[in-house]
């Protein structure tokens, strides 16, 4: 740590040195800046061209535009722009109701405060990296964690209802409930209600928070009434369960879902 006087003297020395040995901004530094700016504009134009001309084919940069917004759908899985993926993935890590606020407000606020107070915490004049081990470790940890969270956010398997629904005929065949209308209705509800955002079923969906695979739920023979009670209030039946209640679906729908779960005896 150096005193303010030493830092002032250091800056005075910097100014004298630049005056003596520096070079004018134009044309030296400005040349570098201009070349770099041209590269930036070319990259932006290049991305736009790739985006436009792959829109009908591979769509590596995504579609030109999605379907018109429809507030009526309940099963659309939202996705932010890629630079929010790290926050988006934090939401999946802190999914329990009591901890959600950590991911939504807590961690971003702490990060912002850390950035703002950085120059008041690091008061040394030293700028050589070889003598700033703490700064190097902090930078490496930040880059790695942001990178991993962004990657996890980008590759997170969000179950889109339409895709899950497409798998229902094959489920019915494997589980042998193709002729059970009630179970088929339940399977559709299962696909639409976002169950596969936490549970897996015959390879569809993503497992989160240790939610169990439901492919062979029926083989436990817990009974339709148990399944209905559990769906209505998971934590009443299973204390501490992070699963949200689905009582809002209504008695008939819950019965269909329970029938579907009980009919899932595991692939034959």
């Amino acid at each position, binding site marked *: 740590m150096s005193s303010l006087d030493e830092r002032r003297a250091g800056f005075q020395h910097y100014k004298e040195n630049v005056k003596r040995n520096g070079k004018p901004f134009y044309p030296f530094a400005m040349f570098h800046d201009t070349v770099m700016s041209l590269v930036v504009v070319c990259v932006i134009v290049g991305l736009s061209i790739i985006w436009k001309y792959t829109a009908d084919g591979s769509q590596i940069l995504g579609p030109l535009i*999605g379907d018109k917004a429809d507030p009526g759908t309940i099963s659309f899985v939202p996705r932010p722009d890629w630079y929010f993926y790290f926050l988006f993935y934090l939401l999946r890590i802190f999914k329990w109701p009591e901890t959600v606020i950590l991911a939504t407000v807590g961690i971003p606020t702490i990060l912002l405060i850390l950035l703002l107070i950085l120059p008041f915490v690091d008061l040394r004049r030293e700028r050589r990296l070889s003598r*700033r081990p703490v700064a190097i470790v902090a*930078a490496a940890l930040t880059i790695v964690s942001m990178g991993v969270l962004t990657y996890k956010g980008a590759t997170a398997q969000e179950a889109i209802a339409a895709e899950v629904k497409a798998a229902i005929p094959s489920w019915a065949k494997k589980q042998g409930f193709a002729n059970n209308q009630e179970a088929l209705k339940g399977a559709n509800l299962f696909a639409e209600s976002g169950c596969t955002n936490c549970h897996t079923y015959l390879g569809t969906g993503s497992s989160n928070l240790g939610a169990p695979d439901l492919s062979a739920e029926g083989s436990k023979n817990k009974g339709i009434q148990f399944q209905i009670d559990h769906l209505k209030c998971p934590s009443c039946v299973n204390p501490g369960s992070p699963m949200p209640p689905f009582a809002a679906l209504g008695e008939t729908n819950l019965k269909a879902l329970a029938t579907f779960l009980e009919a899932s005896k595991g692939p034959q």
Partner: protein
Amino acid sequence: MATTTKQSRSQSLAKTATYPLDWLEERSGLIGGVRYFLFRKVPGDTGWWHTLGSATLTAFLVQLITGVILAMYYKPDVNSAHESVQHITNDVWAGWLVRGMHRWGASVFIILMFMHMGRVFLFGAYKYPRELNWIVGVLILATALFEGLTGYLLPFDQTAYWATVVAININGTAPFVGPYLASILRGGAEIGPDTLARFYSIHMLLVPGALIGLIGLHLYLVVRLGVTSPPWSKDAADREPEPEPVAPRSGLVQPAPRAAGVRRRPSE
């Protein structure tokens, strides 16, 4: 005689040519300001690492220009927003390019901002006397992320709509101010026509205005305080000084130590 007339004629010609510049300089001092900006000295060893800031500025200017053009065709209304974006993409001459550049320019802008911040951190350029400029930079980063968030809703497709629903809900989880913030962003109790108009206004008036102001301050401070030399610079300025070797007692064998108060610097 002939030569003097020639001289005076060329002199008066030069005077006429520079008259507008002199006029402007006398009344505003702007010419002197531009000359100072262009011919100010920067450290002799600045290089490609120092171009990330101006590259970020270039990406921001691309956003400003393409944004102004998009605003000429975009309709911030829930019934026509999606159609107007489709119209820009498919019908307007080079509309796809302008929209593509705005869309991908946003990502490039944000990547460059993070890279610029990483460079400033690793160079230790946030240290005395540039603490305030680091803070302004962090504010620019946060404001720009908010700009990305508000712009994401405007194409008004499914992704845009549902990501915004989640984003507003996340704002709503903040303690105390959260519910008010969410209600301000929504423009009411529900996400509706007012939300889109509000996001449009925030995205193209409020936040860009704030960004222009902050970037202006950022640049002013860069010019005022000067560009930091790289940490590997031969000059020892802006560094923790080497510990002074313990001066041996002067005696018969060893020469007297240097006069007190004169610090050894490698460059001198």
